């Protein structure tokens, strides 16, 4: 039973709740929104147990939508998208709770947009019809555009339109590519359908046009990831967005790019994606992202910007892991996607919390606040260490798997990427030192108040996840493995045979 309605409910409920929030008086908005997102989370939690790793696509719902074009409403979840869906539903209540005191104007609109955004994000991860995927991909653009543009910082208009146009450019080219694929599959088989499986079965005969199509998909996803040199929208958007916006941008929206590579770009065009030159270019771009992102983060005076550039570096690891295409590296990439959502989300929350107190994002405005706000300092330390990938935290598991898995495919690139871990330690530990240690020079910082229970309620679930994933990631890996294996087999037949299985024995 649950399997048949859960995805519909997950997609529909935030929309309904968003409408309700919009119609209620503004002072009730945050309570209702929080309640709605908690219900959403509660609805999604049973997925964890109901999901059978070996069964591939599950919870599938398939209905006719626009019959004349062969467009169907098809959704489903496999081991790749399961955790992204759960991450989304997990981060939403926290984001709403985290915006509690930050958002003071037009609250109804804000929370309603957050809920609509939830539908869009989940839709992207579960869509198995390329039309539906495209629609969801675009639909989440508008709420984010408004969140940045209305509730953002000083330079918000510029950041909002830059974010919009970058994403829009990539996605429209992808739209043309989707249509070309659709017509190609239609001409070959006589069945015109946007279904994922249908298109996937017909991409073998594309010939040279596969290069153009891959290019279009690549651009759309690479902008979203973002891959160097298409990353310039990201620091602007992250810095100007309100806390919840930054958290969702970093935590979930960036993952859409890497998810798109995994789900569409690689399986659709394996011959192009695995072409020597394409591999070389992408691995080099990922490496530049890792190292350049880290180096640029090192010199940022603004704490939020530092986190933004660290995202570029983390996503570089994900891209490396995906393209290495071994079981470990792909699972590692998936884990980094989740970890980054948790750690960077927590970092943005912390940055937002301290900003609410001091109204400054500059690192130099702080110093020595560990004595004033010990709880804040402790949590910031743990989260930073997880972002650096210290063993025992979630970050370590993901990056380790990516590096181990990629070494087989790209030894030199992996060796260089390892320096990224060191760079990460350099910029985050320096920043940490300058913010919470050092002498307490600024008298304004003496009056800071420590975390409130509400803020702790936001951070503690994230801390729990950091430790859980760091110490015992097996339940995650076990659920990912069959899907990751299937994906790799699809792209490079025979690649997973005889390799050690990361997750070990039976559950």
């Amino acid at each position, binding site marked *: 039973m649950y399997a048949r309605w859960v995805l519909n409910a997950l997609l529909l409920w935030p929309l309904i709740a968003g409408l309700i929030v919009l119609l209620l008086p503004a002072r009730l908005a945050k309570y209702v929104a929080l309640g709605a997102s908690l219900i959403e989370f509660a609805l999604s939690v049973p997925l964890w147990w109901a999901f059978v790793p070996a069964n591939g696509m599950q919870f599938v719902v398939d209905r006719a939508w*626009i*019959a*004349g*074009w*062969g467009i169907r409403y098809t959704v489903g979840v496999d081991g790749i998208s399961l955790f992204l869906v759960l991450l989304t539903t997990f981060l939403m209540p926290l984001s709403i709770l985290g915006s509690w005191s930050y958002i003071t104007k037009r609250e109804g609109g804000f929370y309603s947009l957050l809920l609509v955004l939830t539908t869009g994000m989940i839709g992207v991860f579960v869509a198995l019809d390329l039309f539906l995927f*495209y*629609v969801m991909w*675009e*639909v989440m653009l*508008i709420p984010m*555009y*408004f969140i940045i*543009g*209305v509730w953002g910082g000083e330079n*918000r*208009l510029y950041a*909002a*339109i830059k974010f*919009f*146009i970058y994403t*829009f*450019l990539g996605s*429209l*080219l992808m*739209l*043309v590519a989707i*249509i*070309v694929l*659709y*017509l190609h599959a*239609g*001409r070959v088989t*006589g069945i*015109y359908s946007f279904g994922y499986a249908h298109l996937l079965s017909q991409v073998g005969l594309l010939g040279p046009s596969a290069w*153009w199509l891959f290019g279009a998909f690549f651009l759309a996803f690479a902008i979203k990831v973002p891959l160097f040199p298409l990353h310039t929208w990201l620091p602007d958007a992250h810095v100007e967005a309100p806390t919840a916006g930054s958290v969702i941008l970093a935590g979930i929206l960036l993952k859409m790019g890497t998810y798109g590579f995994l789900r569409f770009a690689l399986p659709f065009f394996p011959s192009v994606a695995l072409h020597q030159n394409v591999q070389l270019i992408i691995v080099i771009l990922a490496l530049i992202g890792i190292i350049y992102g880290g180096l640029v983060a090192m010199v940022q005076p603004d704490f939020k910007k530092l986190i933004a550039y660290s995202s570029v570096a983390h996503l570089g690891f994900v891209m490396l892991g995906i393209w290495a295409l071994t079981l470990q590296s792909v699972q590692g990439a998936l884990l980094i996607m989740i970890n980054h959502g948790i750690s960077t989300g927590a970092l943005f929350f912390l940055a937002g919390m301290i900003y609410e107190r001091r109204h400054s994002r500059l690192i130099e405005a702080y110093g020595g606040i560990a004595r004033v706000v010990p709880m804040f300092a402790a949590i910031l330390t743990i989260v930073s260490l997880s972002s650096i990938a210290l063993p025992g935290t979630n970050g370590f598991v993901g990056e380790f798997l990516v590096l181990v898995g990629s070494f087989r495919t790209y030894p030199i690139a992996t060796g260089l990427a390892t320096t990224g871990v060191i760079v990460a330690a350099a910029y985050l530990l320096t920043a940490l030192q300058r913010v919470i240690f050092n002498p307490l020079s600024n008298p304004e910082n003496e009056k800071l108040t420590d975390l409130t229970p509400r803020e702790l309620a936001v951070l503690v679930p994230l801390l729990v996840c950091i430790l859980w994933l760091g110490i015992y990631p097996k339940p995650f890996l076990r659920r990912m493995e069959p899907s990751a294996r299937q994906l790799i087999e699809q792209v490079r037949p025979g690649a997973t045979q005889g390799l050690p299985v990361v997750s070990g024995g039976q559950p």
Partner: protein
Amino acid sequence: MSLDPSVYGDLLLSLLPELVLTGWTLVLLLFVAWRHRTVRDLRIAGWLTIAALISTAAATWWLWWNRAEVAGLAAMIAADDFRWVTTWVFLGAAALTVLISFSYLEREQLLAPEYYVLLLFGTLGMMIMAAGADLMVIFLGLELMSVAVYVLAGFDRRRARSAEAALKYFLLGAFASGFLLYGIALIYGATGTTNIRLIGAQVSFMGSPSVMLLVGLALLIVGFGFKIAAVPFHMWAPDVYDGAPTPVTAFMATGVKAAAFAALFRVMIQAFAGVPAWHDILWWLAVVTMVGGNLFALGQRSLKRMLAYSSVAHAGYLLVALAAGTRAGTSAFLVYVIAYTLMSLGAFAVLAAKGRGGESDVAIDDLAGLAGKRPWLAFALAICMLSLLGFPGTAGFIGKWYILIAATGAGQNVLATILVLTSVVSAGYYLPVIMAMYMKPEPIEAAHVDVYLDRWGRAAVAVVVAGLLLFGVWPNRLFDLARSAGDSVHPAVTTTTSGP
């Protein structure tokens, strides 16, 4: 129901919608001859217009329902689904224009009910254009429509800009008519007929087309290019759209453009399917129009001028559907033109509400803070802008999507790519409108107190928004209608592939 044009009764029947509308227009003309002073007269005339439009739509529906078709090749009037659907588009555009005109005419003190007579004559001209199966009939319709719209453009005769618009439109329009007529004459010289289907038969019989035919075709395209405001024949459009009273601008941007396109589609597909040269001409025309329209619009500060250039850009998108030249292209044109009519009219309606005392001076930044004061109006304009941008969830996206499918289906991948790239450019001028309304503070206190739309205007906007969202999410019915209407223009023999 088969109609034989040589039988008198059948001939009248095939012209039923036009006759109904003519009858109503004459009644209205008589009415305004006696009653043309007060606001009340204006209102009554407006409602008579609505009644005329509804009964014409009903007559059209009756013919559609009975599957009326004209027997034989040589008829001067076509009776196919394409005609019915485009007729509904014109009638819908006219009806929405009437609804937004009520408060506008009263506010601007344009108390002359002849306005509605001209509107009906213009609509009648459009219907004849879309119905014409003979170049002369199309020309007659075009002139009937154009003369009415020339006068409408200058209807606010106390304002110099309106007079300038009318004069400019008239002069250039007369030129365009000249081109068109000369083109028709040359085509007649080359083929010996002005009947579209007979020309088609002649052309395919001739094999390689003669020079005279090609020159005639080129002049024909120039003439239509003026009417649809394709670059480089668009020069008049911004000034005329800017100077004309806003509801008239809305009518011109939607109805006139749709009618010219409808006639162009019929001529190109039925008469010149055998002349490959026009594909290349239209390909370039589409590219230049999309690129030019979007780039010019990017530089506009005035909302009305921006919408004028945006309508040029949309003519470019419609030309892509024509350049595809396939059945899917014709259906895509119909879907897009319906979406475009709705979203354009919605945008102009909001502009008319905002622009008390001269809406040509409304800059995009003047909308700042509108969302705080008039949330529903701002929401409606935002939906129209997103739809014009081609954003999923709106009818504009479905239309653009269909055009893209048609273009790629015809092997025009480059054209499709140019279309989406210019759409990205268009985000640069549609988004600032949303940005101003939602993200910028009100420049001065009470900047929006005089924004007013009466209840009929609001009803029109509500219909537009509901239509845009409905067709954006559930276009099935619209799609089926457009498909059968699009197919009806194309010769029946070339049914090869199913597919979209």
